[in-house]
C-alpha cells in the first residue's frame, strides 16, 4: 500500500496543524475541531453549541452573512459548521489552489464572528425547527434519545439541543459561551489533499497565529445505570435502540472491539443482517456501531420493524449480541479484515474523509495515525484476541429505548 506523507506542527498558541499530502487528487479539505461541543453547553441550555456554530457563520470579519456565503460559493468552497458532542466542527472542501482563501474565510468565522443580536432570533428558530423535525423522524429520534440515556449527563445530551432548554438561551449567554470555549489550545486543524505542510503553514500562521487562550472547563464523567424505556408514537413501525458498554478509541483493545462489532454488523454477511433480516425478514434496517468518546465507548444498535414483530426483533437482537461470546469463526474475522483493507485503501481517494480522520485521531490519541498503522493493527487481530475482548466486555447492562405504538418487554 503506497503511503501518503503526513506531517504536523503545533503553533505557539496550542493549535495543532496536521497535513496529509495526497498527490493523486486536485482537491484539498480541512476539518477544524474546537473544544466547544454540546457537552460544554451551560446547564439547562442544551443547544448552545449548535446555535453558536450557526451564528458564527452569519457575518464575520469584513463580511456580512450574505457576503460570506457569496465568497464561499465564488471560491467553490463546500463548507459547514456543526456541533458534535465534543467539538465545534468547521469543515470545508475545495480545489487545492483555493485552500488558502478558504482558511482565511474560516479564520474570520472562528476569530471574528459578528454574533449580531439582530440575527439571534433566526438562529434560535433554526435550532427549534431542527429539533421539531427530529420529533417527526422516529428513526433519528430513537438514536438521539438512546444516547441521552446511555451516557452520563451531559455526555449523552444531543448536540442538536433540547426543546425545553431553548427558552433559557439569550444572545448574552451564547456570546459568553463563544468567549469561553472558542480557543486555540487543544484545537486541531486537519488538512488533506494536494498540498504540503510547508505550503500551508504560512497561511495557517497568518490566519490563526494571533488567536489566544484556552477553554478551561472540564466536564466530569459521572455514572448512569442501564434503563429500558418506551416513548409512545403513532407509527407503522416500532424503532428499537439498544446500547451497551464497550471501550474507547484510545483503549489498546479498541481494534478487537471494532472487529467484534463488525462480526455483528459489518457488511451484509454479518450476523445481525443475516439473522434478523435475511433469515427472519423482521426488518429492512438493522445495524450496530461502535460509538466513542475520549475515555468511554459503547455499542449502539438499531432495528426498525412493524409493531407486531417488534418484541421478536428485540429478542433476537439481544440473543445475537450475547451469542457473540460463544465463538467467532475465522471466516467472519477474515471478512472484517478484507472489508477494512478495501475501505482503508479507498479512503485515499477522498481528501474530506482523510482531513476529518487526521483531526479525530489526534484528538483521541494525540498523535498521527497512518492508514498503514490501522491496517497493521487490524491484520494482527486473531479470533482469540477478539473473543478475549468479548469475554472481558460481554454484551450486558443494556440500555433499551423503543418508540412506537406499544412498549416491549
Amino acid at each position, binding site marked *: 500500500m503506497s503511503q501518503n506523507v503526513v506531517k504536523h506542527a503545533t503553533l505557539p498558541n496550542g493549535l495543532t496543524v496536521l497535513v496529509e499530502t495526497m498527490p493523486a487528487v486536485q482537491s484539498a479539505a480541512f476539518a477544524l475541531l474546537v473544544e466547544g461541543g454540546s457537552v460544554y453547553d451551560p446547564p439547562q441550555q442544551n443547544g448552545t453549541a449548535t446555535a453558536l456554530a450557526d451564528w458564527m457563520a452569519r457575518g464575520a470579519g469584513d463580511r456580512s452573512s450574505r457576503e460570506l456565503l457569496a465568497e464561499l460559493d465564488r471560491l467553490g468552497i463546500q463548507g459547514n459548521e456543526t456541533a458534535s458532542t465534543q467539538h465545534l466542527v468547521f469543515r470545508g472542501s475545495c480545489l487545492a489552489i483555493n485552500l488558502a482563501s478558504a482558511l482565511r474565510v474560516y479564520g474570520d468565522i472562528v476569530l471574528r464572528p459578528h454574533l449580531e443580536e439582530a440575527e439571534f432570533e433566526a438562529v434560535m428558530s433554526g435550532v427549534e*425547527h431542527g429539533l421539531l423535525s427530529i420529533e417527526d423522524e422516529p428513526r433519528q429520534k430513537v438514536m438521539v434519545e438512546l444516547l441521552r440515556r446511555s451516557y452520563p449527563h451531559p455526555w449523552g445530551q444531543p448536540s442538536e439541543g433540547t426543546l425545553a432548554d431553548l427558552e433559557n438561551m439569550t444572545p448574552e449567554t451564547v456570546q459568553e459561551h463563544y468567549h469561553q470555549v472558542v480557543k486555540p489550545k487543544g484545537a486541531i486543524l486537519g488538512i488533506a489533499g494536494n498540498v504540503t505542510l510547508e505550503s500551508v503553514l504560512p497561511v495557517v500562521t497568518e490566519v490563526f497565529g494571533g488567536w489566544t487562550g484556552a477553554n478551561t472547563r472540564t466536564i466530569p464523567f459521572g455514572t448512569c445505570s442501564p434503563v429500558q424505556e418506551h416513548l409512545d408514537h403513532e407509527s407503522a413501525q416500532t424503532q428499537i435502540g439498544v446500547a451497551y458498554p464497550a471501550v474507547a478509541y484510545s483503549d489498546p483493545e479498541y481494534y478487537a472491539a471494532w472487529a467484534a462489532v463488525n462480526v455483528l454488523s459489518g457488511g451484509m454477511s454479518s450476523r445481525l443482517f443475516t439473522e434478523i433480516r435475511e433469515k427472519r425478514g423482521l426488518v429492512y434496517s438493522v445495524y450496530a456501531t461502535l460509538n466513542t468518546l475520549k475515555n468511554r465507548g459503547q455499542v449502539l444498535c438499531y432495528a426498525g420493524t412493524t409493531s407486531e414483530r417488534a418484541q421478536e426483533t428485540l429478542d433476537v437482537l439481544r440473543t445475537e449480541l450475547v451469542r457473540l461470546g460463544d465463538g467467532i469463526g475465522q471466516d467472519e474475522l477474515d471478512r472484517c479484515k478484507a472489508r477494512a483493507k478495501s475501505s482503508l485503501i*479507498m479512503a485515499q481517494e477522498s481528501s474530506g474523509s482523510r482531513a476529518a480522520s487526521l483531526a479525530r485521531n489526534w484528538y483521541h490519541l494525540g498523535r498521527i495515525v497512518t492508514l498503514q498503522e490501522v491496517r497493521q493493527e487490524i491484520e494482527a487481530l486473531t479470533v482469540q484476541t477478539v473473543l478475549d475482548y468479548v469475554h472481558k466486555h460481554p454484551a450486558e447492562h443494556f440500555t433499551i429505548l423503543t418508540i412506537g405504538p406499544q412498549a416491549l418487554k
Partner: protein
Amino acid sequence: MQFHHTTLPNGLEVVAELNDDAYSVAFGFYVKTGARDETTAVSGVSHFLEHMAFKGTEKFSAEDVNRIFDEYGADYNAMTGEESTIFYSSVLPEYLPQTFELQSSILFPTLRQDDFDMEKKVILEEIGMYEDQPSSVAYDRAMQLHFDGHDLGRSVLGTSASVSALTSEQMRAYHAEHYRAGNIVLAVAGNTDWNTVLDLAKQHCSHWPAGVDARQIGTPRPVAKTQYIVKDHCQQEQIIQMASAPTCTDPRRYAAELLTVIVGDDTNSRLYWELVDPGLAESAECGYYEFEGAGTYLTFLNGPPESTQENIDRIARIYDAVNSNGVTEDELEQAKNKIATRIVLRGERPMGRLSSLGGNWLARREYRTIEDDLQTLRDVSIQDIRDLVREYPLLQTTTVGVGPLSAP
C-alpha cells in the same frame, strides 16, 4: 482518463473510463427498467426484483452472495428508481474478476419461492419505514398527483397491497421482458484495463438474452392539484410542489440545474435567504429532476404548520420575480462555481465517475468528461436562463402537504 465503448452481439452496451491513478475500480449494471415500466397490477416489482437478485442463482445461494462480496471487501449495493435499476460495486482492482462474476450473475436470479416469501416481509418493512417519514409520503403522493394517468406517477416501492399480492410468476414474467442485454449498460470507472473489461463482459454476459424493451414514453399533462394528508402527531408540515421542466435529452437541462441552484440550493440561494436564514422554515429548497420525456422542478418546504401558507406565498413571489426578471450575473457566477466544485470533487472517486458515466450512457448514449461538464456549465448565459423560464417557468402546479394541516 481513457474512454472505451463497445456493444456485444446480444446488444449489451459496455462503456469504460479508465484511470491508472485510481486506487479502486467501480462498475455497475444499469438496467433500463423501473416503476414506470410496470403495470399497476405489479406495482413495486422492479424494486422487489432488485432485492431478489441478492438471493442468488443456481450457483450462488443467498448466503454465498453476501459472503463473497464481503470476502472481497466490496462496497456494493443496488437501487431502483422510476426508470432504472442499478447494481454497482466498488472494489480493489485485484478483486474485479471475482466480484464481476458474482455481480453479473445475480442480474439473472433463480427466484426461489421461499426466498421470495421471506424477502416480501423485508419489502413490507421497507414500505412501513417510509410510511413513517413525512417527506417520503409527500414525494410519493406528489409524483402520483403530478403525473396522474402517466407511468411516472407509479410509486417505486409499490403499496403494501400490491407487494403482498405479487407472485413469483409475475416477477419472472417481468424479468424476462425487461432484463435483456439490449436494455442494459455495463459501465466501468477507475483502475483496470480495457481488455480485462472486455474479457469479463464476454465471459459473463454474452449468453444473456438479446432484445430491447420499447418503453412507452407518453407525454405527461400535469394539471394543478392540491392535496393535504393529515398526520396529527407531526410537529412540522412537509410540503412538496412540482412543475414541468426540461426532459433528460433537452439541452436546457444544464440551465435548469443552474436555475434551481440559484433559486433553491440548500444554502446561499433565494429560498435560503428568504425562508431559511430568517428562521421562517426548517428547510426550503428547489431541485431539478430529469426523466425520459419529462422533467420536473421539485420544491421542498418543511416548517411550522401555522406559517405554511405564508411560506408558500413567499416562494410564489420568488418564483414570479425569477420568471419575470431572470437572475443576476453574480448569482449565475456563484452557482457555476458551486456546481463545478461538486463535479470535480465527486469525480475524484471512481464511484463518483461511475454514476455520471453509466447515467449518461443509459439516458442519452453519451460520454462526457469532467471537462465537458465544466465547459457546458461555463457556457450557460443569463439569456439562456431567461429563455428557459419563458418555456419552463418556476411554478407550484402540484402541491402535497403531509402534517397537521388538512388544508393550506
